[in-house]
């Protein structure tokens, strides 16, 4: 009797919801590949284009997977990206690219650490802390640049961070592959990743077991800040300038990508590869709708609808 109960529970574990993003991705891809055969959807150029446009969202989605799996949320990623693009551009202009990269990352580290401290020391909800931080970061970026774009003239920097390519492979694609690989291994195969899942799964139980859940909360938000800064630097490299508007509204696309990818908004489970596929799925939809010749207003409506349907399917108990 016991083993029968166990078999049943094993069968339950083959949970189709986790694979929804894979199925959805393949289905939508085939749909566009067939219907948009003549509009060039499947050309290498277009596919690389999708990858390029998605890479930055996907990068942030990797870190957001940890944040959401730990039971937190980070609404400030888009604003941090904008601020980091600006600090990087300003520092490159004065002190060169190495200092620029350091400044960008430091920006993300600082903002993320403040988020983490407020959430874990003052026990404020991350939703409110990062909502507030969104304004602080975006406003700071506007203030220090006087809302003007800051051009980046360093060719080397631009090539590495987004504009260049190695042979036919765009550098953005390499970034996203590296970030995804690191994220997937850390979540699945390290103590830290396991403790992130435990904290989100049942915070109290994790604490009783000896997991320092406050440290976990602090770290996921800090890393999210650093990765958001990296995303901002990729914007800066791709668009060869720093500007406060870069990343505006990205937080919503990032969260949608993570949830589409099968990470529970209640914490406790998550998949880095799923999140990246979720981001790609959104990218494919955007691209397909443009090629279909839809107006941007129509695109926005359809994109919103697809996210609602997908999340509804993914979260049905």
């Amino acid at each position: 009797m016991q083993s029968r109960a166990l078999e049943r529970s094993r069968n339950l574990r083959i949970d189709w919801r986790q694979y929804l993003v894979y199925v959805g991705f393949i289905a939508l891809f085939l749909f566009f590949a067939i219907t948009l055969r003549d509009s060039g959807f499947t050309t290498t150029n277009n596919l690389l284009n999708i990858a390029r446009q998605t890479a930055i969202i996907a990068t942030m989605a990797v870190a957001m997977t940890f944040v959401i799996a730990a039971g937190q949320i980070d609404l400030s990623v888009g604003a941090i990206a904008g601020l980091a693009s600006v600090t990087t551009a300003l520092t490159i202009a004065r002190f060169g690219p190495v200092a620029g990269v350091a400044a960008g990352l430091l920006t993300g580290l600082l903002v993320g650490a403040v988020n983490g401290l407020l959430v874990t020391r003052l026990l404020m909800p991350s939703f409110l802390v990062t909502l507030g931080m969104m304004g602080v970061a975006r406003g700071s970026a506007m203030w220090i640049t006087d809302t003007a774009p800051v051009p980046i003239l360093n060719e080397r920097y631009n090539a590495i961070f987004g504009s260049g390519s190695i042979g036919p492979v765009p550098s953005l694609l390499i970034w996203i592959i590296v970030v995804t690989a690191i994220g997937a291994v850390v979540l699945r195969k390290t103590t830290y990743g396991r403790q992130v899942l435990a904290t989100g799964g049942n915070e109290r139980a994790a604490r009783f077991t000896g997991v320092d859940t406050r440290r976990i909360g602090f770290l996921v938000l800090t890393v999210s800040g650093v990765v958001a800064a990296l995303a901002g630097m990729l914007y800066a490299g791709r668009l060869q300038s720093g500007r406060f508007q870069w990343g505006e509204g990205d937080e919503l696309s990032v969260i949608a990508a993570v949830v589409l990818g099968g990470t529970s908004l209640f914490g406790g489970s998550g998949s880095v590869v799923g999140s990246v596929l979720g981001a790609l799925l959104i990218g494919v939809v955007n691209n397909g709708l443009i090629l279909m010749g839809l107006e941007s207003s129509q695109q926005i409506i359809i994109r919103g609808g697809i996210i609602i349907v997908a999340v509804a399917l993914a979260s049905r108990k």
Partner: protein
Amino acid sequence: MSELAVQMSGISKSFSGTRVLHAVDFELRPGEVHALVGGNGAGKSTLMKILQGVYTADEGRIAVNGQPVEIRSPHDAGALGIGMIFQEFSLIPTLTVAQNIFLTREPRSGGLIDDRASEQRTRELFEEMDERVDPRAMVGDLSTGYWQLTEIAKALAQEARILIMDEPTSTLTATETQSLFALMQKLKARGISIIYISHRMEEIFQTTDRVTVLRDGRWISTEPTSQLTMERVIDDIVGKTMEGAFAWQERQVERTGTPLLEVRGLSAGGRVRDVSFSLYPGEILGIAGLMGSGRTELARAIFGIDRIDAGEVLIRGERAPIRVPDDAIAAGVALIPEDRRSQGLVLDHTVKDNLLLPMLPRLQQFGLVDDARGARIAKGFVESLQIKTRSVETPVRLLSGGNQQKVVIGKWLATEPDILIMDEPTAGVDIGAKTEILGVIRRLADAGKGIIVISSEPAELLAVSDRIVILHDGSVQRELDRREIVTEEELHHAVQSA
């Protein structure tokens, strides 16, 4: 034998000025199963939380394996080989059995977690325990019996030599309970000591070597189980608490005509089986039974929270199809749940807002809530229930437990129910508030309402009930008229031997 596994001596502890432990002594021998018993508020859990490092004692000494120790955190306790078998708190439902067992101590290879190694170790642990559990099963998908096995394996994986089990059988089926007892004997044979907290005398006499009784935060007795009788243990647990506040006030109830509520052959969710009883206007019906006997589930089924599988509920002689709580409320039934803080109140809202919540639709005029009238009604409740609060605008969280409970009662009275089901109405309130709540219950019955009081405290049931139904394993075991019961011991007995 060698030195004691645990020796706690002269342990005292106070919480905000109230002393809950008075110089308590407790000792545990190696390879012993030691029962720790006592009524609610006797201090069992506080004592164990001190041993686990959740609280620190104000006074007293602890020695583990003969060495004096200071236990400042659960982590310290773990390092000393003390493991707690929680009911469910320390497992992560979204991780697998093996991942839970090795959480924070994962085996690694090349710096990365080696899940295969932890699954292998888990398999070995369960083999040693003679149990079959799939290490890769997701904990959230398993039944509570497996949760417990996982908890025990987790403690053993941490080399625990001292296990604390708090009411371990309350969520288990009879078969699961027996296999737990068999496992305890195996652990004992390996020299592992077990502190066993339970209300169930039968289990205590079946599995334990010695029994320590606490009452009102004091040590009462420690005796070998073989030299004890159930009478003796119950005497020690009860002491002499029957005077004063809990004295029975005899009431006259006419049990004629149509019952207010009649339950016929009710079964629900496997935890309630073929239960029948009736409740007359003006009557207080006590429901007794051990934890897990189906007390709470019965109330949930009548109130439409759990689905009724068989049987029927009649209200004022007519069949009442209750499918959701709204049906029950419409039929004049109110349920005052066990966990008032999470189920009964919005803690940050004011006394007034909480009281008026169920009657807001009736306070509306032209789409707006009539605030002045609401305030008058709320004040009326505060007076009639003697709720001690600075004003009706005070947030409920600032009130004491007893007064919070009165707000919950008042809130449901606002719906003008004829039938009130109260699950553990005085849990966690002090003795003074208890008396007052019992007084409120009596007054409501005098006003003609039918009241069901579910309680794990025999003293409380005896104080207010006109009749008492004893549940065991989901079925009605006995129904007693209050007049038939002379002493609290008798009721204890009836519940234990059900």
